Protein backbone atom coordinates (compact mmCIF):
# COMPACT_ATOMS: atom_id res chain seq x y z
CA UNK A 1 0.00 0.00 0.00
CA UNK A 2 1.62 3.23 -1.12
CA UNK A 3 1.48 6.75 0.23
CA UNK A 4 1.03 9.56 -2.22
CA UNK A 5 3.30 12.61 -2.13
CA UNK A 6 0.38 14.97 -1.48
CA UNK A 7 -0.83 12.75 1.38
CA UNK A 8 2.59 12.72 3.06
CA UNK A 9 2.84 16.49 2.75
CA UNK A 10 -0.57 16.86 4.35
CA UNK A 11 0.41 14.63 7.28
CA UNK A 12 3.61 16.59 7.83
CA UNK A 13 1.67 19.85 7.84
CA UNK A 14 -0.78 18.50 10.41
CA UNK A 15 2.08 17.33 12.63
CA UNK A 16 3.81 20.71 12.50
CA UNK A 17 0.55 22.49 13.29
CA UNK A 18 -0.11 20.17 16.23
CA UNK A 19 3.36 20.76 17.67
CA UNK A 20 2.98 24.52 17.23
CA UNK A 21 -0.40 24.44 18.96
CA UNK A 22 1.01 22.48 21.89
CA UNK A 23 3.96 24.81 22.27
CA UNK A 24 1.64 27.78 22.03
CA UNK A 25 -0.65 26.34 24.72
CA UNK A 26 2.29 25.66 27.03
CA UNK A 27 3.73 29.14 26.53
CA UNK A 28 0.33 30.70 26.99
CA UNK A 29 -0.41 28.71 30.10
CA UNK A 30 2.90 29.49 31.70
CA UNK A 31 2.52 33.12 30.75
CA UNK A 32 -0.93 33.21 32.29
CA UNK A 33 0.34 31.56 35.49
CA UNK A 34 3.21 34.00 35.62
CA UNK A 35 0.76 36.87 35.35
CA UNK A 36 -1.45 35.71 38.22
CA UNK A 37 -1.16 37.54 41.46
CA UNK A 38 -2.03 36.64 45.03
CA UNK A 39 -3.98 37.99 47.97
CA UNK A 40 -2.41 37.63 51.37
CA UNK A 41 -2.69 39.19 54.74
CA UNK A 42 -4.03 38.75 58.20
CA UNK A 43 -7.31 38.71 60.01
CA UNK A 44 -7.09 40.39 63.37
CA UNK A 45 -9.40 41.29 66.17
CA UNK A 46 -9.48 43.32 69.32
CA UNK A 47 -12.17 41.06 70.72
CA UNK A 48 -11.05 38.95 73.64
CA UNK A 49 -10.35 35.32 73.02
CA UNK A 50 -12.84 32.91 74.51
CA UNK A 51 -10.94 31.92 77.62
CA UNK A 52 -13.34 30.12 79.91
CA UNK A 53 -13.54 26.40 79.21
CA UNK A 54 -16.92 24.85 78.61
CA UNK A 55 -18.36 22.59 81.29
CA UNK A 56 -18.94 19.06 80.15
CA UNK A 57 -22.38 17.90 81.24
CA UNK A 58 -22.31 14.30 80.08
CA UNK A 59 -19.85 11.52 79.27
CA UNK A 60 -17.11 13.08 81.41
CA UNK A 61 -15.25 9.78 81.31
CA UNK A 62 -14.58 10.36 77.63
CA UNK A 63 -14.87 14.13 77.25
CA UNK A 64 -13.26 15.23 80.53
CA UNK A 65 -14.66 17.76 82.97
CA UNK A 66 -14.21 20.68 80.57
CA UNK A 67 -13.39 21.32 76.92
CA UNK A 68 -11.78 24.49 75.55
CA UNK A 69 -14.06 27.16 74.12
CA UNK A 70 -12.72 27.54 70.58
CA UNK A 71 -15.28 29.99 69.31
CA UNK A 72 -12.85 32.95 69.27
CA UNK A 73 -9.20 31.90 68.95
CA UNK A 74 -6.87 34.89 69.08
CA UNK A 75 -3.09 34.74 68.73
CA UNK A 76 -0.64 36.74 70.85
CA UNK A 77 -0.62 39.69 68.43
CA UNK A 78 -4.32 39.74 67.75
CA UNK A 79 -4.39 37.30 64.84
CA UNK A 80 -7.78 35.63 64.50
CA UNK A 81 -8.01 31.96 63.55
CA UNK A 82 -10.91 30.23 61.81
CA UNK A 83 -12.09 33.24 59.81
CA UNK A 84 -13.13 32.48 56.23
CA UNK A 85 -12.01 34.82 53.46
CA UNK A 86 -13.96 34.58 50.19
CA UNK A 87 -12.93 36.12 46.87
CA UNK A 88 -16.21 36.85 45.15
CA UNK A 89 -16.26 35.76 41.53
CA UNK A 90 -13.03 33.78 41.65
CA UNK A 91 -13.48 30.11 40.81
CA UNK A 92 -12.68 27.63 43.57
CA UNK A 93 -9.28 26.03 43.58
CA UNK A 94 -8.58 22.34 43.75
CA UNK A 95 -9.60 21.47 47.27
CA UNK A 96 -9.47 18.12 48.97
CA UNK A 97 -12.66 16.12 48.54
CA UNK A 98 -13.99 14.62 50.61
CA UNK A 99 -13.01 16.77 53.53
CA UNK A 100 -12.88 15.12 56.94
CA UNK A 101 -14.49 16.14 60.20
CA UNK A 102 -13.39 14.19 63.27
CA UNK A 103 -15.20 13.99 66.59
CA UNK A 104 -12.12 14.13 68.79
CA UNK A 105 -12.17 14.82 72.51
CA UNK A 106 -15.84 15.77 72.14
CA UNK A 107 -14.89 18.56 69.71
CA UNK A 108 -15.26 18.82 65.96
CA UNK A 109 -11.77 18.87 64.42
CA UNK A 110 -11.11 20.96 62.47
CA UNK A 111 -13.66 23.42 63.73
CA UNK A 112 -13.84 25.44 60.50
CA UNK A 113 -13.26 24.22 56.95
CA UNK A 114 -13.97 25.27 53.40
CA UNK A 115 -15.53 23.07 50.75
CA UNK A 116 -17.96 23.32 47.89
CA UNK A 117 -21.70 22.69 47.55
CA UNK A 118 -22.25 19.07 46.63
CA UNK A 119 -18.83 17.97 47.91
CA UNK A 120 -18.46 14.97 50.18
CA UNK A 121 -17.61 15.14 53.85
CA UNK A 122 -16.21 12.18 55.79
CA UNK A 123 -17.50 12.15 59.35
CA UNK A 124 -15.47 10.10 61.75
CA UNK A 125 -14.78 9.75 65.45
CA UNK A 126 -11.84 9.17 67.73
CA UNK A 127 -14.09 8.97 70.80
CA UNK A 128 -15.58 5.75 72.06
CA UNK A 129 -18.92 7.35 72.85
CA UNK A 130 -22.06 8.15 70.88
CA UNK A 131 -21.66 11.29 68.81
CA UNK A 132 -24.09 12.62 66.25
CA UNK A 133 -23.03 14.85 63.40
CA UNK A 134 -26.06 17.00 62.68
CA UNK A 135 -25.66 19.49 59.84
CA UNK A 136 -27.83 22.56 59.43
CA UNK A 137 -27.96 24.93 56.46
CA UNK A 138 -27.95 28.69 56.94
CA UNK A 139 -31.75 28.78 56.75
CA UNK A 140 -32.03 26.28 59.59
CA UNK A 141 -32.83 23.26 57.47
CA UNK A 142 -31.48 19.98 58.77
CA UNK A 143 -29.28 18.54 56.03
CA UNK A 144 -28.34 15.26 57.67
CA UNK A 145 -27.87 13.76 61.11
CA UNK A 146 -25.75 10.64 61.40
CA UNK A 147 -24.96 8.69 64.54
CA UNK A 148 -21.34 7.73 65.09
CA UNK A 149 -21.68 5.41 68.06
CA UNK A 150 -18.08 4.26 68.30
CA UNK A 151 -14.54 5.24 67.40
CA UNK A 152 -13.13 4.35 64.03
CA UNK A 153 -16.25 4.63 61.87
CA UNK A 154 -16.28 6.88 58.83
CA UNK A 155 -19.60 7.94 57.36
CA UNK A 156 -19.79 10.02 54.20
CA UNK A 157 -22.43 12.57 53.41
CA UNK A 158 -22.83 15.26 50.74
CA UNK A 159 -23.04 18.96 51.48
CA UNK A 160 -26.40 19.66 49.91
CA UNK A 161 -26.42 23.36 50.65
CA UNK A 162 -24.29 26.37 49.94
CA UNK A 163 -22.98 28.81 52.49
CA UNK A 164 -22.21 28.13 56.13
CA UNK A 165 -23.14 24.59 57.17
CA UNK A 166 -23.25 24.32 60.95
CA UNK A 167 -22.43 21.04 62.63
CA UNK A 168 -23.71 20.17 66.08
CA UNK A 169 -23.69 17.04 68.17
CA UNK A 170 -27.11 16.36 69.68
CA UNK A 171 -25.60 14.38 72.54
CA UNK A 172 -22.88 16.92 73.43
CA UNK A 173 -24.45 20.32 73.16
CA UNK A 174 -21.25 22.36 73.34
CA UNK A 175 -19.79 20.87 70.15
CA UNK A 176 -19.71 23.18 67.14
CA UNK A 177 -18.20 22.82 63.70
CA UNK A 178 -18.56 24.77 60.48
CA UNK A 179 -18.06 23.92 56.84
CA UNK A 180 -18.35 26.83 54.45
CA UNK A 181 -19.66 25.39 51.18
CA UNK A 182 -18.45 28.18 48.91
CA UNK A 183 -19.05 28.65 45.19
CA UNK A 184 -16.13 31.10 45.09
CA UNK A 185 -12.51 30.72 46.17
CA UNK A 186 -12.32 30.71 49.96
CA UNK A 187 -9.70 29.97 52.58
CA UNK A 188 -9.58 29.72 56.37
CA UNK A 189 -7.23 31.92 58.38
CA UNK A 190 -4.45 30.14 60.22
CA UNK A 191 -3.85 30.17 63.97
CA UNK A 192 -1.96 33.48 63.68
CA UNK A 193 -4.69 34.99 61.50
CA UNK A 194 -2.67 34.83 58.31
CA UNK A 195 -4.03 33.70 54.95
CA UNK A 196 -2.89 33.59 51.35
CA UNK A 197 -4.76 32.96 48.12
CA UNK A 198 -2.57 32.24 45.09
CA UNK A 199 -3.41 32.03 41.42
CA UNK A 200 -5.60 35.12 41.30
CA UNK A 201 -5.79 36.67 37.81
CA UNK A 202 -5.20 40.44 37.80
CA UNK A 203 -8.33 42.41 38.43
CA UNK A 204 -10.51 43.94 41.08
CA UNK A 205 -12.26 41.67 43.55
CA UNK A 206 -14.61 41.93 46.46
CA UNK A 207 -13.50 40.10 49.59
CA UNK A 208 -16.00 38.82 52.13
CA UNK A 209 -15.19 37.71 55.63
CA UNK A 210 -17.02 35.27 57.89
CA UNK A 211 -16.45 34.21 61.45
CA UNK A 212 -18.79 32.30 63.72
CA UNK A 213 -18.90 35.11 66.29
CA UNK A 214 -17.27 38.19 64.73
CA UNK A 215 -18.04 40.34 61.72
CA UNK A 216 -16.32 42.55 59.17
CA UNK A 217 -17.46 44.47 56.13
CA UNK A 218 -16.46 43.60 52.61
CA UNK A 219 -13.27 44.95 51.04
CA UNK A 220 -12.45 45.66 47.42
CA UNK A 221 -8.93 44.81 46.37
CA UNK A 222 -6.98 45.07 43.14
CA UNK A 223 -4.67 42.24 42.19
CA UNK A 224 -1.75 42.93 39.87
CA UNK A 225 0.29 40.55 37.78
CA UNK A 226 2.88 38.74 39.89
CA UNK A 227 1.98 40.94 42.84
CA UNK A 228 0.74 40.07 46.31
CA UNK A 229 -2.09 42.28 47.43
CA UNK A 230 -1.83 42.72 51.16
CA UNK A 231 -5.04 42.79 53.16
CA UNK A 232 -5.52 43.34 56.86
CA UNK A 233 -8.99 43.05 58.27
CA UNK A 234 -10.15 43.69 61.79
CA UNK A 235 -13.18 41.64 62.78
CA UNK A 236 -15.41 42.86 65.55
CA UNK A 237 -18.23 41.72 67.70
CA UNK A 238 -21.58 42.64 66.22
Amino acid at each position, binding site marked *: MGVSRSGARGSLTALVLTVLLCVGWLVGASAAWAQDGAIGGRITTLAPASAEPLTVT*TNQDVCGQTVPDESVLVGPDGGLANAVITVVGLAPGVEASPIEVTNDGCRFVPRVQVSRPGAQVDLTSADDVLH*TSHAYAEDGR*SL*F*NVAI*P*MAGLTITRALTARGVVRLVC*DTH*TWMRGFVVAAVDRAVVSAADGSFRIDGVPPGTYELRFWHERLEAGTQTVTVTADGVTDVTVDMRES
Partner: protein
Amino acid sequence: MFATFVSAGAPAVALAQGPSSPQEMYGAWCASCHAPDGTGQVAVKTITVEPMDFTDCAVTTPEPDGDWELVIAEGGPVAGLSSQMPGYGDALTAEQIHALVGYVRTFCTEPGWPIGNVNFSRPIFTEKAFPENEVVVLPSVSHGDEGDGASVRLKTVYERRVGTRGHVEVGLPLQSVGRAGERAAGLGDVTVAAKYVLHANWASTRIVSVGFEVKTPTGSEGRGVGGGTTVLEPYVSAGFAVRDFVVQTQFKVEMPMRDPGGDTEVVYNVYGGRDLSWLPSTWSIGVEINGVDGKLAVTPQLRKGLTRTGALAAAWGGYGFRS
Protein backbone atom coordinates in the same frame (compact mmCIF):
# COMPACT_ATOMS: atom_id res chain seq x y z
CA MET B 1 -43.15 -5.75 56.12
CA PHE B 2 -41.76 -8.84 57.77
CA ALA B 3 -38.62 -9.36 55.81
CA THR B 4 -35.43 -8.66 57.66
CA PHE B 5 -34.43 -5.06 57.36
CA VAL B 6 -31.43 -4.41 55.18
CA SER B 7 -29.82 -1.01 55.40
CA ALA B 8 -28.29 0.27 52.21
CA GLY B 9 -25.57 1.93 54.22
CA ALA B 10 -24.89 -0.91 56.63
CA PRO B 11 -21.20 -1.34 57.38
CA ALA B 12 -19.55 -3.95 55.24
CA VAL B 13 -17.71 -5.38 58.21
CA ALA B 14 -19.54 -5.95 61.45
CA LEU B 15 -17.98 -4.00 64.23
CA ALA B 16 -16.46 -6.25 66.83
CA GLN B 17 -16.17 -3.69 69.58
CA GLY B 18 -18.93 -2.02 71.48
CA PRO B 19 -22.00 -3.31 73.26
CA SER B 20 -23.48 -6.55 72.00
CA SER B 21 -26.76 -7.29 73.78
CA PRO B 22 -29.85 -5.26 72.88
CA GLN B 23 -29.96 -3.87 76.42
CA GLU B 24 -26.31 -2.79 76.23
CA MET B 25 -26.81 -1.24 72.80
CA TYR B 26 -29.83 0.69 74.02
CA GLY B 27 -27.91 1.86 77.09
CA ALA B 28 -24.95 3.06 75.03
CA TRP B 29 -26.68 4.55 72.01
CA CYS B 30 -30.28 5.41 72.88
CA ALA B 31 -30.55 6.02 76.61
CA SER B 32 -28.86 9.43 76.59
CA CYS B 33 -31.99 10.85 74.94
CA HIS B 34 -34.68 8.20 75.52
CA ALA B 35 -33.62 7.43 79.14
CA PRO B 36 -32.59 4.03 80.46
CA ASP B 37 -36.19 3.30 81.42
CA GLY B 38 -37.57 4.40 78.02
CA THR B 39 -39.61 7.29 79.38
CA GLY B 40 -37.52 9.97 77.68
CA GLN B 41 -37.00 11.71 81.01
CA VAL B 42 -33.24 12.12 81.46
CA ALA B 43 -31.25 13.96 84.10
CA VAL B 44 -29.19 15.90 81.55
CA LYS B 45 -31.27 16.74 78.53
CA THR B 46 -29.25 17.37 75.36
CA ILE B 47 -32.00 17.64 72.75
CA THR B 48 -34.68 20.28 72.42
CA VAL B 49 -37.60 18.03 71.50
CA GLU B 50 -39.54 15.71 73.79
CA PRO B 51 -38.55 12.13 73.04
CA MET B 52 -41.15 9.41 72.64
CA ASP B 53 -42.22 7.72 75.85
CA PHE B 54 -41.56 4.09 75.02
CA THR B 55 -43.46 2.94 78.10
CA ASP B 56 -46.64 4.33 76.53
CA CYS B 57 -47.99 1.28 74.74
CA ALA B 58 -50.16 3.44 72.52
CA VAL B 59 -46.92 4.87 71.14
CA THR B 60 -44.81 1.74 71.12
CA THR B 61 -47.13 -0.90 69.67
CA PRO B 62 -49.12 0.33 66.62
CA GLU B 63 -46.36 0.51 64.02
CA PRO B 64 -44.72 -2.51 62.40
CA ASP B 65 -41.05 -3.32 62.95
CA GLY B 66 -40.22 -2.05 59.48
CA ASP B 67 -41.26 1.50 60.39
CA TRP B 68 -39.13 1.50 63.55
CA GLU B 69 -36.17 0.05 61.71
CA LEU B 70 -36.47 2.68 59.01
CA VAL B 71 -36.43 5.49 61.58
CA ILE B 72 -33.44 4.03 63.42
CA ALA B 73 -31.56 3.53 60.16
CA GLU B 74 -32.36 6.83 58.46
CA GLY B 75 -33.32 9.15 61.29
CA GLY B 76 -36.49 10.88 62.45
CA PRO B 77 -37.33 12.93 59.34
CA VAL B 78 -38.05 9.80 57.30
CA ALA B 79 -41.23 9.39 59.37
CA GLY B 80 -41.95 13.05 60.00
CA LEU B 81 -40.20 12.95 63.38
CA SER B 82 -37.50 15.28 64.66
CA SER B 83 -34.19 15.59 62.85
CA GLN B 84 -32.57 15.29 66.26
CA MET B 85 -33.16 11.56 65.95
CA PRO B 86 -30.03 10.58 64.00
CA GLY B 87 -29.68 7.78 61.49
CA TYR B 88 -27.73 4.69 62.54
CA GLY B 89 -27.93 2.88 59.22
CA ASP B 90 -24.29 3.47 58.36
CA ALA B 91 -23.07 2.41 61.79
CA LEU B 92 -25.14 -0.60 62.81
CA THR B 93 -26.00 -3.85 61.10
CA ALA B 94 -29.55 -4.78 60.18
CA GLU B 95 -29.48 -7.38 62.95
CA GLN B 96 -28.45 -4.80 65.54
CA ILE B 97 -31.23 -2.44 64.47
CA HIS B 98 -33.78 -5.25 64.53
CA ALA B 99 -32.64 -6.22 68.03
CA LEU B 100 -32.97 -2.62 69.21
CA VAL B 101 -36.58 -2.53 67.99
CA GLY B 102 -37.30 -5.70 69.91
CA TYR B 103 -35.80 -4.18 73.05
CA VAL B 104 -37.76 -0.93 72.68
CA ARG B 105 -40.96 -2.99 72.44
CA THR B 106 -40.26 -4.39 75.93
CA PHE B 107 -40.83 -0.99 77.55
CA CYS B 108 -44.56 -1.51 76.98
CA THR B 109 -45.40 -3.80 79.88
CA GLU B 110 -49.19 -3.59 79.73
CA PRO B 111 -50.50 -6.85 78.27
CA GLY B 112 -53.00 -7.02 75.47
CA TRP B 113 -51.73 -4.46 72.99
CA PRO B 114 -51.56 -5.97 69.50
CA ILE B 115 -48.22 -5.31 67.81
CA GLY B 116 -48.14 -3.37 64.55
CA ASN B 117 -46.67 -6.31 62.69
CA VAL B 118 -50.23 -7.64 62.34
CA ASN B 119 -51.33 -4.29 60.99
CA PHE B 120 -51.51 -5.75 57.50
CA SER B 121 -51.98 -3.64 54.39
CA ARG B 122 -55.62 -2.68 53.91
CA PRO B 123 -57.42 -4.60 51.17
CA ILE B 124 -60.07 -2.74 49.19
CA PHE B 125 -63.14 -4.47 50.65
CA THR B 126 -62.00 -6.69 53.51
CA GLU B 127 -62.22 -4.93 56.86
CA LYS B 128 -58.87 -5.02 58.66
CA ALA B 129 -58.72 -6.73 62.03
CA PHE B 130 -56.18 -4.26 63.42
CA PRO B 131 -57.49 -1.18 65.26
CA GLU B 132 -56.31 2.07 63.70
CA ASN B 133 -55.99 5.80 64.14
CA GLU B 134 -56.39 6.95 60.60
CA VAL B 135 -58.54 8.50 57.94
CA VAL B 136 -59.44 6.34 54.98
CA VAL B 137 -60.78 7.75 51.73
CA LEU B 138 -62.47 5.15 49.55
CA PRO B 139 -63.41 6.30 46.06
CA SER B 140 -65.25 3.84 43.84
CA VAL B 141 -66.88 3.86 40.44
CA SER B 142 -69.52 1.38 39.33
CA HIS B 143 -70.65 0.82 35.77
CA GLY B 144 -74.33 1.19 35.12
CA ASP B 145 -76.56 -1.64 34.05
CA GLU B 146 -80.17 -2.39 33.27
CA GLY B 147 -80.95 1.21 32.46
CA ASP B 148 -79.11 2.74 35.39
CA GLY B 149 -76.14 4.99 34.79
CA ALA B 150 -72.75 4.80 36.37
CA SER B 151 -72.40 5.72 40.02
CA VAL B 152 -69.52 7.40 41.78
CA ARG B 153 -68.98 7.07 45.51
CA LEU B 154 -66.51 8.71 47.84
CA LYS B 155 -66.57 7.40 51.37
CA THR B 156 -64.43 8.96 54.09
CA VAL B 157 -63.91 6.93 57.24
CA TYR B 158 -62.52 8.45 60.43
CA GLU B 159 -61.07 5.80 62.75
CA ARG B 160 -59.87 6.11 66.34
CA ARG B 161 -58.44 3.54 68.70
CA VAL B 162 -60.10 3.11 72.06
CA GLY B 163 -58.17 1.52 74.89
CA THR B 164 -55.92 -1.44 74.38
CA ARG B 165 -57.86 -3.29 71.69
CA GLY B 166 -60.85 -1.19 70.74
CA HIS B 167 -61.62 0.94 67.71
CA VAL B 168 -64.51 3.14 66.69
CA GLU B 169 -65.19 4.75 63.34
CA VAL B 170 -67.59 6.95 61.43
CA GLY B 171 -68.05 6.73 57.69
CA LEU B 172 -69.49 9.51 55.51
CA PRO B 173 -70.36 8.48 51.93
CA LEU B 174 -70.93 11.01 49.19
CA GLN B 175 -72.61 9.56 46.13
CA SER B 176 -73.60 10.44 42.63
CA VAL B 177 -75.98 7.91 41.16
CA GLY B 178 -77.42 7.61 37.68
CA ARG B 179 -80.94 6.26 37.72
CA ALA B 180 -83.50 5.99 34.96
CA GLY B 181 -81.79 8.65 32.90
CA GLU B 182 -81.41 11.06 35.80
CA ARG B 183 -78.56 11.69 38.18
CA ALA B 184 -78.87 12.21 41.92
CA ALA B 185 -76.09 13.22 44.27
CA GLY B 186 -75.77 13.71 48.00
CA LEU B 187 -74.89 12.21 51.31
CA GLY B 188 -75.46 8.48 51.48
CA ASP B 189 -76.05 6.30 54.50
CA VAL B 190 -73.69 7.28 57.32
CA THR B 191 -72.08 4.36 59.14
CA VAL B 192 -70.86 4.07 62.70
CA ALA B 193 -68.90 1.05 63.85
CA ALA B 194 -66.87 -0.43 66.66
CA LYS B 195 -64.26 -3.16 66.58
CA TYR B 196 -62.45 -5.17 69.24
CA VAL B 197 -59.40 -7.39 68.93
CA LEU B 198 -60.16 -10.82 70.37
CA HIS B 199 -56.76 -12.32 69.76
CA ALA B 200 -53.32 -11.23 68.56
CA ASN B 201 -50.38 -13.52 69.15
CA TRP B 202 -47.07 -12.16 70.41
CA ALA B 203 -45.22 -13.58 67.43
CA SER B 204 -47.30 -11.18 65.34
CA THR B 205 -48.53 -13.67 62.79
CA ARG B 206 -52.29 -13.64 63.42
CA ILE B 207 -55.06 -11.40 64.66
CA VAL B 208 -58.81 -11.89 65.05
CA SER B 209 -61.35 -9.14 65.74
CA VAL B 210 -65.10 -8.80 66.02
CA GLY B 211 -66.98 -5.70 64.99
CA PHE B 212 -70.42 -4.22 64.69
CA GLU B 213 -71.40 -1.62 62.12
CA VAL B 214 -74.64 0.29 61.91
CA LYS B 215 -75.65 1.85 58.62
CA THR B 216 -78.06 4.69 59.31
CA PRO B 217 -80.68 5.80 56.74
CA THR B 218 -79.33 9.31 56.27
CA GLY B 219 -79.38 9.04 52.50
CA SER B 220 -82.47 9.53 50.37
CA GLU B 221 -83.82 6.22 49.23
CA GLY B 222 -86.14 7.93 46.77
CA ARG B 223 -83.20 9.63 45.01
CA GLY B 224 -81.18 6.43 45.02
CA VAL B 225 -78.45 7.53 47.44
CA GLY B 226 -79.69 5.68 50.50
CA GLY B 227 -81.09 2.35 51.59
CA GLY B 228 -84.00 3.80 53.49
CA THR B 229 -83.55 1.64 56.55
CA THR B 230 -81.11 1.01 59.36
CA VAL B 231 -78.85 -1.93 58.66
CA LEU B 232 -77.06 -3.86 61.41
CA GLU B 233 -73.81 -5.49 60.33
CA PRO B 234 -71.98 -7.71 62.82
CA TYR B 235 -68.73 -9.15 61.48
CA VAL B 236 -65.58 -11.09 62.22
CA SER B 237 -62.23 -10.11 60.69
CA ALA B 238 -58.98 -12.01 60.81
CA GLY B 239 -55.46 -11.73 59.42
CA PHE B 240 -52.71 -14.31 59.12
CA ALA B 241 -49.13 -14.04 57.94
CA VAL B 242 -47.06 -16.88 56.56
CA ARG B 243 -43.64 -15.45 55.74
CA ASP B 244 -44.36 -12.56 53.38
CA PHE B 245 -47.78 -13.87 52.35
CA VAL B 246 -50.83 -12.44 54.07
CA VAL B 247 -54.39 -13.71 54.21
CA GLN B 248 -57.15 -11.45 55.52
CA THR B 249 -60.77 -12.46 55.83
CA GLN B 250 -64.05 -10.93 56.87
CA PHE B 251 -67.39 -12.58 57.44
CA LYS B 252 -70.32 -10.20 57.81
CA VAL B 253 -74.10 -10.41 58.11
CA GLU B 254 -76.14 -7.43 56.88
CA MET B 255 -79.57 -7.21 58.53
CA PRO B 256 -81.89 -4.44 57.33
CA MET B 257 -84.29 -3.53 60.10
CA ARG B 258 -87.16 -3.00 57.66
CA ASP B 259 -87.25 -6.67 56.75
CA PRO B 260 -84.59 -8.55 58.70
CA GLY B 261 -85.96 -11.91 57.79
CA GLY B 262 -86.31 -11.36 54.06
CA ASP B 263 -83.40 -9.12 53.09
CA THR B 264 -80.61 -10.35 55.33
CA GLU B 265 -77.42 -10.96 53.35
CA VAL B 266 -74.23 -12.80 54.15
CA VAL B 267 -71.07 -11.05 52.98
CA TYR B 268 -67.66 -12.67 52.93
CA ASN B 269 -64.35 -11.31 51.78
CA VAL B 270 -61.05 -13.15 51.50
CA TYR B 271 -57.82 -11.40 50.54
CA GLY B 272 -54.50 -13.03 49.76
CA GLY B 273 -51.43 -11.09 48.82
CA ARG B 274 -47.94 -10.09 49.63
CA ASP B 275 -45.70 -7.06 49.96
CA LEU B 276 -42.98 -6.95 47.31
CA SER B 277 -40.23 -5.79 49.68
CA TRP B 278 -39.54 -4.98 53.32
CA LEU B 279 -39.96 -1.24 52.72
CA PRO B 280 -43.08 0.27 54.28
CA SER B 281 -43.63 2.14 51.02
CA THR B 282 -43.48 -1.02 48.94
CA TRP B 283 -45.97 -2.25 46.39
CA SER B 284 -48.43 -4.87 47.60
CA ILE B 285 -50.08 -7.19 45.15
CA GLY B 286 -53.09 -9.31 45.97
CA VAL B 287 -56.50 -10.54 45.05
CA GLU B 288 -59.80 -10.51 46.92
CA ILE B 289 -62.75 -12.81 46.60
CA ASN B 290 -65.90 -10.96 47.56
CA GLY B 291 -69.15 -12.75 48.00
CA VAL B 292 -72.70 -11.59 48.74
CA ASP B 293 -75.02 -14.52 49.18
CA GLY B 294 -74.85 -16.36 45.87
CA LYS B 295 -72.93 -13.71 43.95
CA LEU B 296 -69.15 -13.80 43.74
CA ALA B 297 -66.59 -11.23 42.62
CA VAL B 298 -62.86 -11.38 42.15
CA THR B 299 -60.92 -8.16 42.81
CA PRO B 300 -57.27 -8.12 41.82
CA GLN B 301 -55.54 -5.14 43.35
CA LEU B 302 -52.34 -3.19 43.82
CA ARG B 303 -51.38 -1.04 46.78
CA LYS B 304 -48.51 1.43 47.07
CA GLY B 305 -47.26 3.44 50.00
CA LEU B 306 -47.10 7.05 48.92
CA THR B 307 -44.82 8.08 51.75
CA ARG B 308 -41.65 6.33 52.88
CA THR B 309 -43.35 4.91 55.97
CA GLY B 310 -46.44 3.94 54.02
CA ALA B 311 -48.55 6.14 56.31
CA LEU B 312 -50.24 7.44 53.18
CA ALA B 313 -51.11 4.77 50.65
CA ALA B 314 -53.25 4.26 47.59
CA ALA B 315 -54.85 1.10 46.23
CA TRP B 316 -56.32 0.26 42.86
CA GLY B 317 -58.55 -2.63 41.94
CA GLY B 318 -61.52 -3.71 39.88
CA TYR B 319 -64.21 -6.34 40.22
CA GLY B 320 -67.24 -7.82 38.63
CA PHE B 321 -69.97 -9.91 40.21
CA ARG B 322 -71.02 -13.28 38.87
CA SER B 323 -74.13 -15.01 40.13
